[in-house]
């Protein structure tokens, strides 16, 4: 039987990891909430961030955590033409066409990653990645704490933008009634473009953190895509703090599954939870809509 300390540490780690996952899920949530777009390429944006951080570190020695914002910005800028030229023109064809396009994009990018970066497993090697932090009973990896703090800060920042700024107003209005929003002067196309870019930035930032904590391959994106969907559905589509709580909940559940059933069950638990919530309460535990 595991000691209390081991269980507590595991749960605490799960808690922190969940917070980090929430950052990766945030982008998906916003895009789904505002644009009703199921972005199946979300996972590759995440992995793209990780690769960018990896090569940036290799080339310049700049620590990825310091470079987090520029990395996010770079991926965001790369995402803008995707939205503008691939997705925007499809808006009139109904919701499946853009989703299928993101699917196509995902498989293209994933395989380009393999071609150019090889399928090797990579990890962003940092000293602090392995250092444990002891907080009384529990011991958690230091990097989890750092990642959690960054994640929460980012989530709070996004929440601030959405609830306090003019852009956030435009975003919330476009989410709920795009033609009325246009009629009061909101450039809805621009809002969509920026929202998509913001989603990509969050994914890339989260991916960077994941890359430091864990290893990644070009195929990791699909994995996190599903985990993130689980978080979005749990927390309520478009609900910022709901996403955070959903992530933490998932992280804790995954930890518990890991220590009781075995490591291989971590992801499975997430998916089972996802399917159950989808079946029983699709609007999430906390209700949806960017609020």
């Amino acid at each position, binding site marked *: 039987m595991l000691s209390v300390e081991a269980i507590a540490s595991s749960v605490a780690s799960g808690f922190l990891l969940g917070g980090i996952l929430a950052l990766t899920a945030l982008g998906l949530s916003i895009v789904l909430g505002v644009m*009703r777009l*199921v972005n199946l390429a979300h996972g590759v944006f995440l992995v793209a961030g990780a690769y960018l951080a990896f090569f940036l570190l290799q080339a310049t020695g700049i620590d990825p955590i310091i470079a987090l914002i520029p990395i996010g910005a770079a991926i965001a800028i790369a995402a803008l033409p995707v939205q503008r030229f*691939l997705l925007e*023109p*499809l808006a009139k*064809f109904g*919701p*499946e*066409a853009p*989703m*299928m*396009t993101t*699917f*196509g*994009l*995902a*498989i*293209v990018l*994933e*395989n*380009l990653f*393999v*071609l150019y970066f090889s399928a090797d497993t990579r990890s962003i090697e940092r000293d602090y990645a392995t250092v444990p932090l002891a907080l009384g009973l529990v011991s958690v990896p230091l990097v989890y704490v750092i990642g959690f703090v960054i994640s929460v800060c980012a989530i709070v920042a996004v929440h601030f933008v959405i609830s306090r700024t003019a852009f956030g107003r435009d975003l919330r209005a476009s989410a709920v009634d795009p033609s009325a929003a246009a009629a009061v002067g909101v450039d809805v196309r621009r809002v969509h473009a920026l929202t998509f870019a913001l989603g990509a930035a969050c994914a890339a930032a989260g991916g960077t953190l994941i890359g430091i904590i864990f290893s990644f391959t070009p195929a990791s994106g*699909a994995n996190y895509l*599903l985990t993130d*969907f*689980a978080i979005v559905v749990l927390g309520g589509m478009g609900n910022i703090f709901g996403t955070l709580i959903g992530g933490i909940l998932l992280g804790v559940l995954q930890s518990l599954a890991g220590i009781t*059933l*075995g490591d*291989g*069950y971590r*992801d*499975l638990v997430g*998916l*089972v939870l*996802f*399917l159950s919530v*989808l*079946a029983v309460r*699709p609007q999430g535990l906390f209700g949806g809509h960017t609020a």
Partner: protein
Amino acid sequence: MTQERVSLQRGLHGIEQLGGLLIAALFAIGALVPNLLSDYALLIGFRLMLYIVLAEAWNLLAGYCGLVSLGSASFVGIGAYVLVGLLNQTGVPVPVAVLIAGLAGAALSAAVSPAVFRLRGLYFTVGTLALGEALRLLMINVPWFGGATGLFLRADWPSSAELYRYVLALLILTELVISVGAHSRLSTLMRAVRDDEDAAAQVGVRAFRVKLGTFMVASLLMSAAGALQAYKLTAVEPYGMFGLQWSVDVLAMVIIGGIGLRYGPVIGAVFVVLLGELLADYPELHVAITGVILIVLIRFAPKGLAGVAERTVNLFGRRVAGAHSV
């Protein structure tokens, strides 16, 4: 104009009938062929026919009934594992095992349908994706099914000719089923549900039953195909049989070929298998190019290659008819 339209319709119908005859002829040749071709060619034929089965099944589900599923892997995998398990544990003949594998898939679809059908549109799609992945992870972790290493077939291994004949039989069955599905009153009900589920309910269509029936038939076919694939590989493991590539390939085939069109799946399967053979040494490039083609087609030719063909025939027909009517 009406006159042209009518003769055009008759023309297209004629092409359909001709196409049907052609396929029947191919089947007849196909049955005789194994004795004439090399192993390699037989296996290509196997792959092509298997893919056509999968594409037809998915087209029935997504194209005719509007249920866009990204969980094809679930059913391919179930069929695969059931077949190997059956052949290992019991002495049932292969066709029976394939049938049971198919029924297992149908049973799975029936079991999950109350949950997934609550989900409309995009949520359904994501739900099926999650289902496929969940099953894969389950198979990796649960030791009774061999865990990550999977299971090996302990019964007699099949020859290429044998495999070829089995898949040909499955293909013939599939085409029959799809033809019935596409031209029967069931097709009318399915497409009504696809076009507008609420309006369909308002004219008395029990949408849940229609969706369930379609789902079960499609799953049965996909699982039977998965069973044959397992028989060919003589081994099953989670990554191969429940892996996402099945869902990707099936979707790509149907969208490239033309979703909701009768000949879309065949055209798409031929295209994808051909492309695969051409780029056999460059698997990543193959998938990447498939993705690009997908994106381009969705944007510029949403009805796929079959749709483009139809449009060309229409245009040509109109020009011919126009020349006559002057």
